[in-house]
């Protein structure tokens, strides 16, 4: 078992509060990803759960037990660090067995557990090597092995892939995911990379400036972002945002052109921020006029940068594009794909969206 509940977690460094009351429930076995821009407090939250930081307020509950004041070793939680944090003077086997050695498990038992973990992670041939003799990806696996050997209730990962090159990152991403499917241990994973979050998570927690912005499955966040921030953060290329207002028959762009119908009725005349994803736009004979600024074929897709009024819009299409920079085109937003946000609070105006 390993369900985690965070209740109103606050953390201050001196007079500066960096976590402003975080509430989060994580079910046993769930793969939860904390995502957000650098400095938003992801690591601080993770380290608080680990016990490496003492929180200034709130409760951390692991399986109905309050663990706020427990030492890290008493929490039954393992952590994988960004820079691996392997002990350079110990072999791979010693690194992995260190926690068991400290808790006075006997040698044969340690050996057995280390071998079992090494088997899972393909580390068996490397057990006698030192960390300096390993590649980045191998070190990362040793760091994971060190966590697995303990068989903890919860795994914590703090940006574990950020030191790897792009190709290896994709590979390790699926390895971590596979590992989770195999062990089914509750996992909390921190990243600033939304693609990592989207591909790995059962549940994504988007954080911003020490607050939780939105919690949901990857598709929920993609389809129903609760705020301009989440909408812009999730998805690549990012969603387009334009200033618009509600008309009698839907949302109108600043110059009066019709953009589409909102998900819920909005009082006519109200200023909104309209958002639509690059892949939800189409070229058409009528619609919002725009000039092509840039055409970038990426193979399967083509990415167009368009200019209209003050705004620069990005659209992607799988169709063949014959337009050239400078051409005038018309774009429409696919039915039901227009997102509306309050112009001041930047929260979603869709029904059921969490209030700010």
């Amino acid at each position, binding site marked *: 078992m390993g369900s985690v509940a965070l209740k109103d977690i606050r953390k201050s460094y001196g007079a500066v509060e960096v976590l402003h009351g975080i509430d989060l429930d994580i079910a046993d076995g769930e793969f939860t990803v904390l995502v957000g821009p650098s400095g938003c407090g992801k690591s601080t939250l993770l380290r608080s759960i680990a016990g490496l930081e003492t929180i200034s307020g709130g409760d951390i509950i692991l399986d109905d037990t309050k663990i706020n004041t427990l030492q*890290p*070793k008493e929490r039954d939680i393992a952590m994988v660090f960004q820079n691996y944090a*392997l002990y350079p*003077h110990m072999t791979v086997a010693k690194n992995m067995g260190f926690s068991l050695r400290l808790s006075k498990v006997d040698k044969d038992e340690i050996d057995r557990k280390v071998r079992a973990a090494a088997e899972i992670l393909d580390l068996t041939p490397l057990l006698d090597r*030192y960390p300096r003799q390993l590649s980045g990806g191998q070190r990362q696996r040793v760091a994971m092995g060190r966590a697995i050997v303990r068989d903890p209730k919860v795994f914590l990962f703090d940006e574990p892939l950020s030191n790897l090159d792009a190709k290896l990152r994709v590979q390790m991403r699926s390895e971590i995911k596979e590992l989770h499917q195999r062990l089914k241990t509750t996992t909390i994973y921190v990243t600033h990379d939304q693609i990592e979050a989207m591909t790995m998570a059962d549940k994504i927690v988007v954080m911003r400036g020490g607050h939780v912005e939105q919690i949901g499955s990857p598709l929920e966040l993609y389809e129903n972002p609760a705020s301009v921030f989440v909408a812009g953060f999730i998805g690549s290329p990012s969603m387009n945002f334009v200033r618009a207002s509600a008309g009698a028959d839907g949302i109108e762009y600043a110059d009066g052109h019709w953009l589409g119908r909102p998900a819920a009725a909005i009082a006519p005349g109200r200023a909104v921020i309209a958002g639509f994803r690059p892949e939800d736009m189409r070229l058409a004979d009528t619609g919002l006029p725009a000039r092509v600024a840039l055409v970038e074929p990426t193979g399967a897709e083509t990415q167009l940068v368009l200019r209209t009024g003050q705004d620069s819009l990005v659209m992607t299409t799988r169709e063949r594009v014959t337009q050239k920079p400078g051409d005038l085109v018309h774009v429409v937003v696919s039915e039901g794909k227009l997102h509306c946000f309050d112009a001041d609070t930047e929260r979603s105006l869709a029904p059921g969206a969490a209030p700010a």
Partner: protein
Amino acid sequence: MRHDRLLAYAMILPVVAAVLAFVVGPTYNVATLSLTKVVMGMERGFGTFDNFRALTADPVFWLVMKNTAIWILGGTVLCVTVGLAVGTFLALDSRLTGWLRALILLPWVIPDVVTAMAWKWMLHGQVGIIGQTLQDTGLTDRPISFLGDPQLVMWTLVVVLIWRKMPLVALILCAAIRSVPDDQLEAARMDGANAWERFRFVTIPNIAFSLTAVTVISMIWITAEFALPWIMTGGGPANASQIMATYIYQQSFEFFNWGVASAMSVINLLMLVSIVALYLYINRRSWASEGSQ
């Protein structure tokens, strides 16, 4: 090509010449002198071990060896262990340790002679402040002659030596301890290591390099230290604090017994060479040296 090589040799020539003149030359001189029979300052025949025989036949030699062992081994072990303890304390983050890190170097900037004189007075049997304080607080009822008691004098010298040499060791180890990666220590906390286990299994291996380096450097410093014991005791009372350095000085410049003095110098040199060799050997096997395995 040929030209370049000649130029290269020409460029290092001054350094080679200086090393030959100031290091190899005198060393060779002393080494040959130790194998030469000297009578009344006149060289009489080369190729004899008489000097070494004379040296080891004198019971003072064995006393000097024992004292030197206390001086060098005791001094080094205490210097490094006390330095490690103080360095660990200084590595803590606080305003106090910030100040102490600067202040602790004070013993280093005081000249040897001043240090020796000051301690000599403070340790004086009748008028020394340390003995007085001990008596005033009732810890002893008779004056203690720290430098006059053959049982105490060697260890008293070692204490002064530590006072003088330990601060830099502490500071070097403090810097090394502060450069131990935080995430390793945190990983160890997650692995369940308590403060002592983190120190033992993470900090110490990470500073192993600095630790062996300061051990060897302290050993060499202490072996070469002369002014402190010479001024404080001059080897006395009755050779009870005679160590190699003072003995060599006394034999050469008070008794003009150069044969014996140079023989002792050769023994001293061999000792230093083996210390350095040990250091190089330990470093060769270190986990952090690239490539080897």
